[in-house]
């Protein structure tokens, strides 16, 4: 990417990044004494799901002891600052579903759906609705966007698992059994979805846009009134559609105006995809923070890499492509490189967690009001193992998550049981999900 003016680089656009961020609206609404309980009730519940491809070297992921006194192993070390809100889950699996020849395609597909991908290279793809989308269905009414699906690799790049449509490896989010949701990887487009044509998150810019849209709509409403008087009844009905749409849009503007009172760090619409992986990842995480902060959505699904990804990470000393590196054959050099990739990914995730933790909301931080599920659809990539998956859950879950622990479950406990439990904590009642056998105990 070209750093034109400073405005284009992530670091320089985020004026005041790292500094304490402004207090959101909720604070100003709460009377001086602040009724914490009422506030907690009004605080949104949120879900984030973050996927990493090609498995993890589990020896450096799994904590040595279970319970609350566990220590973060080296791969998870970047999360140290948030150890108190980090739970590690061991023993969860998607291998209980019938074995499927698409080892990579099914790894990503099963991660949030607990459903196998249908074996096709064509367009008749099929799996199951994903748990993030079950949450989005529930929360979507309250926000501008039901959910955001983001990634770091273009859907066009790279090829896909043998015999399986690229849709399976390109996404983990499924709106329905036949509707995979594409992952947007261009921060510019994401920004556009969040903030429309404003071009900036600055309060002044947003308010100016709101005022402008309002005056256009007022003027158009008036004009329709004048026009309608010259029309017959059925033609008037047609124009009434326009008027109805206007009142709907006015409600949207009203909501935007309320949200605009929440001050946001000023971010100018990014020009495109930043030139380094790290900058790209951090910018996408920044946008997720903004989306939560402005309450534009409460559900975000993010793929740090598409499953089967062949991205190389020379910046952390892993110069070979990720997928061949994951076929480590227990070669110590490859294992070391794989571990570096794993740790690098977790450190980027930790950046996100830090940002959420530094953003005040009501009586706490955004991190207190979110549930973040981080993991991969494989454990050992060398063996394409779908058992004993690497899973962590981070965040306060708006008071719904218990004290952080390392939880060890019997081998082959369905990952779907965790989904049922997390959805329950989000207030989304799901009795059966995929191959679940109940709600995971201890969550």
């Amino acid at each position, binding site marked *: 990417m*070209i750093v034109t003016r400073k405005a284009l680089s992530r670091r320089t656009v985020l004026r005041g990044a790292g500094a304490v961020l402004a207090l959101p609206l909720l604070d100003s609404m709460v009377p001086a004494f602040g009724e914490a309980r009422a506030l907690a009730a009004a605080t949104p519940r949120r879900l984030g799901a973050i996927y990493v491809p090609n498995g993890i070297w589990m020896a450096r992921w799994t904590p040595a002891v279970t319970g609350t006194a566990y220590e973060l192993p080296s791969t998870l070390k970047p999360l140290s600052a948030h150890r108190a809100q980090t739970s590690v889950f061991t023993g969860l699996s998607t291998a209980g579903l019938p074995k499927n020849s698409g080892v990579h395609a099914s790894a990503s597909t099963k991660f949030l759906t607990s459903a196998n991908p249908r074996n096709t290279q064509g367009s008749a793809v099929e799996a199951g609705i994903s748990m993030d989308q079950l949450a989005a269905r529930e929360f979507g009414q309250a926000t501008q966007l039901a959910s955001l699906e983001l990634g770091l690799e273009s859907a066009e790049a790279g090829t896909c698992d043998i015999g399986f449509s690229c849709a399976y490896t390109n996404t983990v989010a499924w709106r329905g059994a036949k509707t995979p949701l594409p992952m947007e990887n261009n921060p510019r487009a994401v920004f556009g979805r969040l903030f429309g044509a404003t071009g900036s998150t600055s309060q002044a810019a947003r308010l100016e846009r709101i005022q402008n849209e309002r005056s256009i709509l007022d003027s158009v409403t008036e004009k329709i009134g004048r026009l309608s008087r010259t029309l017959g009844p059925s033609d008037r009905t047609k124009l009434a559609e*326009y008027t109805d749409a206007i009142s709907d849009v006015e409600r949207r503007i009203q909501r935007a105006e309320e949200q605009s009172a929440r001050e946001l760090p000023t971010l100018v619409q990014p020009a495109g995809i930043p030139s380094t992986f790290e900058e790209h990842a951090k910018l996408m995480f920044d946008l997720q923070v903004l989306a939560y902060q402005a309450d534009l959505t409460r559900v975000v699904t993010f793929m740090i890499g598409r499953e089967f990804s062949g991205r190389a990470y020379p910046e952390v000393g892993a110069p070979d492509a990720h997928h061949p590196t994951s076929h480590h054959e227990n070669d110590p050099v490859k294992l070391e490189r794989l571990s570096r990739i794993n740790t690098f990914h977790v450190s980027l995730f930790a950046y996100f967690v830090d940002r959420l933790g530094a953003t005040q909301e009501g009586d706490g931080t955004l991190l207190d009001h979110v549930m973040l599920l981080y993991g991969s659809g494989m454990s050992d990539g060398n063996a394409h193992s779908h058992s004993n998956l690497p899973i962590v859950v981070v965040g306060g879950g708006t008071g719904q998550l218990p004290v952080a622990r390392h939880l060890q479950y019997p081998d082959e406990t369905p990952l779907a049981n965790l989904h049922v439990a997390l959805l329950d904590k989000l207030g989304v009642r799901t009795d059966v999900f995929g191959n679940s056998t109940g709600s995971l105990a201890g969550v």
Partner: protein
Amino acid sequence: MPPPQAKQPDSDAAQAFVGYLEASLDRAAAANPDAGRVPPHRMNRTEYVNAIRDLLSLEVDARSLLAVDDSDRGFDNIAGVLSVSPVLLDQYLNAALVISRAAVGDPGAPPGSASQTYSVSKGLYQDDRAGEDVPFGSRGGLSVRHHFPLDGAYVCKIRLRRTMYGYIRAFDEPSDLELRVDGALVARLQVGGAQRGPAPPVTFAGNIAGDPEWEDYMLRGDSALDVRVPIRAGTRTVSVSFVRRIGEPEGILQPDLPPFGYAVNEAVSSPRGNSGPAVDSLAVLGPEGASGTGDTPSRRRIFICQPASAQQENGCARRILMNLATQAFRRPATPDDEQTLMAFYRAGASRGGFEAGVRAGLERLLADPEFVFRIERDRAEPARSHRLTDLELASRLSFFLWSSIPDQELRNLAATGRLRTPGTLDAQVRRMLADVRSDTLVDSFAAQWFSLRQLRSVLPDPDSFPDFDENLRDALEQETRLFISSQLRDDHSVADLLTANYTFVNERLARHYGIPNVYGSHFRRVTLDAEARHGLLGQGSLLTVTAYPNRTSPVLRGRWLLENVLGTPPPPPPANVPALKEQGENGRPASIRERMEQHRRNPVCASCHVRMDPLGFALENFDATGRWRVTGDGGTRIDANASFPDGTTFNGVEGLRAFLVSRREDLVRTAIEKMLTYALGRGLESYDMPTVRAITRDVAARNDRWSAIVLAVVKSVPFQMRRSE
């Protein structure tokens, strides 16, 4: 008609009765015409974009601004279903902002505000010239129309295609890459061939890494392909392509690989032919250090005056906005318009000066219901039909023939009441048909009639049709576009759509059709030796969209012909129809024909399928992508015989074609019904049938030529008149 068991009238008697009925109805219609009524007509996406082009000399990308429109009766310009949803209104507001900024130019726009990334589809082989906008002697790449809002520097960032393992494809040998703006060479870059160290063993590529230096180069060697170019404001063609190397590859020729095997096997080597390096995306980023709004066609069109002093600003803004309103509202601007638009001008000007004011006025104009809707007024007593005003008629003409707003000539004729003076209407229709804007008759009218738009979304099963690539899809679409365009422009008769002995092909399509001696990606007209390929029935676009992803469907093809050629659509199938058995009684896969026999045995199915299936059977020699074949599933010989219950039989596509052409009246009537539906933007009703019959009779004298049909539609009662409510 009497029940099937009863005695039937002979065909002469039946025809005489129908003739008597029709003649009586036609007389009644002539004495008391019912023109029908079109509700307020929202512009669809195509019309919106064309209107912006004609109003502001600005090209905008429809897909990024507006949602797809609903269709009815096969067309997406049917007033009754073109509704306004909150989502669409949001999009209109956003489009008004984006377009007014782009057209006027916004010197305060932030750097990078015009950035956009264009990708090349993965299924597209980049083995030949990528289109008419890249140089001869080039290979692969892409060309895009990009709007540069300001004079300034822009960065073109080129990224190359990766293999499934993330290596840059064929990057181990050097090639030359060119970047051009409006055809002029901006940069020539040498890419590839500078790797060092050993590569991974080919068969283990992806599982075993090569030398670190080799890996680094092959994985990210294209990261410096960024070219910074000063570019003047305006919409320009930016293209990226490889310089083609002349020469034949040595060694044993390898068969073409399907996209998947292609990516796997071609991880490392062979830089020539279709396995050479390829462009993945082009990002245009900027502007940086913008120096001004420049001199764009949009600005020339908008700023018909420039204020010499602050005192002149209001007057000039008024002139500009009234001029735009007259065009956008398709009627002379009124004092009301002036009041509204100038209020927005003043608000904008107070914030950012004269140009910002014009921009604000334009933004408001584009959100106006009178721009977005075509509204016709009732002028007669209830339930009576009256003639449209000249201004209303001018809009109908331009939206019919151009999918856009009237131009100045049309507007002036209408405003002065001369549009209907003898000879004028004919002359205007001919002028409009000759204008390039009438290409929308191909891209909107014919493309929807012939289901061409669906070609974008079909995905033939890669297991059954491994060689269906994006190049073929593009070629199939282009063939039919060029063919229909030539039929309309050369003013053929309707039946020539089915019988023409020529088509347009490039090398890729010629290979698909088995036509020898056609080389290169350029399309050319060829005379067809094989009669099977004559006309639309031999064109792969139609044959592909009427097939399933993995096999042909005589039902889909038959239904398509009944609906779109013979104009006698079958009713939808009854509910709860069980699926056809895929296997015959001997346990072997049933042939398509065997499966279809099940339709005939069930009387509920048979009532329609005896009419549909035979038409489709006659096309069985074309597979699901339109390739000619003589054997079907399991090696059985294709049986393309068709027989109807009334004893009519024919064989193959030639027989089908002769059969369809013998039904001249159905053929021409269908064409007229389709065109009238599209021209009016409403479905046809019983009271329109006298018009359809009259046109069908009248155009026979002019050999059923397209110009005759267009003129007859324009002069028809439903086009010229409107019923009051």
